[in-house]
């Protein structure tokens, strides 16, 4: 198998050596293989950005469980993505304290600036917008996460500051 083929199959349905090493490390903690199902999904998602059908089947085979059972687990957890997401995921808090402090207006502003609604990814594949249960920063509401960063005290100006430059070259006006 040449390199080009290797890369192709690697992305599709073969777990890489690096992924297998990381999964094996988790397997050492658990009494049976399927016990590492969530960890394996996170490991593969960290490399590939999301869990494709091919990735799911490869993990299931390695953990000696059915793809259907693993699918039930993958779709249960909101930080496992079964669809491609942007480079950064915006986890937008719409729980009660943020709602009292006006998060509905902020959500609308994000939709206006980035052109995406919940569950959608910007055209330039930079951002996906997803709602998230209360982020535990209610004293700084409204809040959201952009990638690994918590952004607090949201208002329209902050949304402009964060996203407008991106929107200029990637938004609705190609």
């Amino acid at each position, binding site marked *: 198998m040449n390199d080009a083929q290797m890369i192709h199959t690697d992305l599709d349905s073969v777990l890489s050596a690096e992924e297998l090493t990381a999964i094996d490390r988790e397997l050492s903690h658990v009494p049976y293989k399927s016990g*590492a199902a969530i960890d394996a*999904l996170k490991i593969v998602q960290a490399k590939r950005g999301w869990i494709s059908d091919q990735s799911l089947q490869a993990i299931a085979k390695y953990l000696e469980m059915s793809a259907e059972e693993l699918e039930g687990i993958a779709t249960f957890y909101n930080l496992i993505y079964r669809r491609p997401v942007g480079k950064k995921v915006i986890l937008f808090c719409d*729980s009660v304290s943020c*709602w009292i*402090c006006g998060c509905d207006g902020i959500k609308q502003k994000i939709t206006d600036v980035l052109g995406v609604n919940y569950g959608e990814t910007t055209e330039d594949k930079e951002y996906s917008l997803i709602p998230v249960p209360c982020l535990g920063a*209610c004293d700084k509401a409204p809040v959201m996460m952009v990638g690994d960063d918590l952004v607090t005290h949201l208002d329209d100006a902050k949304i402009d500051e964060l996203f407008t430059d991106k929107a200029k070259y990637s938004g609705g006006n190609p």
Partner: protein
Amino acid sequence: MEKVLTRNIGADLKPTDLKAYEANGGYRGLRKALAGLSPKDCQDVISASNLRGRGGAGFPTGMKWSFVPMDDRCTPGHKYLVCNADEMEPGAFKDRLLMECDPHQLIEGMILSAYTIGADISYIFIRGEYVAAIQRLRDALAECYNAGYLGDNILGSTFSLNMYVHPSAGRYICGEETALINALEGKRANPRAKPPFPQVSGLWGRPTIVNNVETLCNISHIIDRGADWFNTLGVGEDSGTKMFGVSGRVNNPGCWELPMGTPIREIIEHHAGGMQQGLQLKGFLPGGGSTDFLTDKHLDLAMDYNVIGKAGSRMGTGTIIILDDQTCPVGMVLNLIRFFAHESCGFCTPCRDGLPWSRQVLEDIESGRGHAEDLDTLAYQIGYIGTIGNTHCALAPGAMEPLQSALKYFRDDFERHIYGGCCPYNTARRA
């Protein structure tokens, strides 16, 4: 007041490293226990301290631990201690602070708790979104292994313990202890039937204790300074201090360590700075999104488990959410029910199908499409879904708490929506 849980947390919120933690009495409780206290001694001290679980239910910690089979009453194998750091209750934001700013306090509490119940493996089950806390806990664990506080033969004793940080893949229901255990086992986080209780058969079928972050943060102080000292800290019925928080439209939202039994008025008016200009307090949820509303008539109650319970609500997490007079109570309840409907694990029908039904009725009322009989429908749902025993776990009954109390205290607001044909508030358009 003496600061206990926040003694190492400064205004700059800088994380405390091992050196600074030790310099302020850190790991003294652990040294004391390993040098001269048996697990039974530690169990007795925690029971005598009257420490109650800070995660929301308020179950006595000593009693919870006492159900773990010890010594020759336990079959050979692992026992587990799990820290529930899956803080997702709407309006709760206390554990984040404790973990980000003083990770060693949690770890020392966990080592002592594991010693008491005889656990040899321990997990911090933390929500994946707490990126900074995850990193700081991992750094702190590495410091502990280097210093001999974790690993084999801790501080030269016969006690050994390994500890792991386990970031969750999401979902509110993972905060329910048996759902959390299923998540740790790599399964869907559906709660388990009880009994058997986790103390007897938990993670991988072995004895397991699951405690909240704040509960565990208290342990080292109690072991170090004794139950009598801890009992003097509260100003009401309950012992110790508590992280209390206020969110909503107050002048100074935040989280503070205060004595158990601090009056609600003092928390809201003094620490949170009172309502923002032009707003009146209409009601509040005393301990997160799944607790019943109280009103301005309850402001002089003490924040103690039984006092708040007698007033018809629960102290829950101790993080108060304020409803002001310009925010729609129906909209607020709809937000909460929408949350719980979305976070239902789907296992039992009253929760999976009942909560979306409640959400639908509330959406109709909020948007002006409600009918007079909708209030009867909501009352029926509360009676059915809100009864523990009709559902598999406490999620759906918890969801009914703010709804039933909103109907009790703010019924006229529901009626104004129904008979006026629209929402009389302007909450949705606020920026």
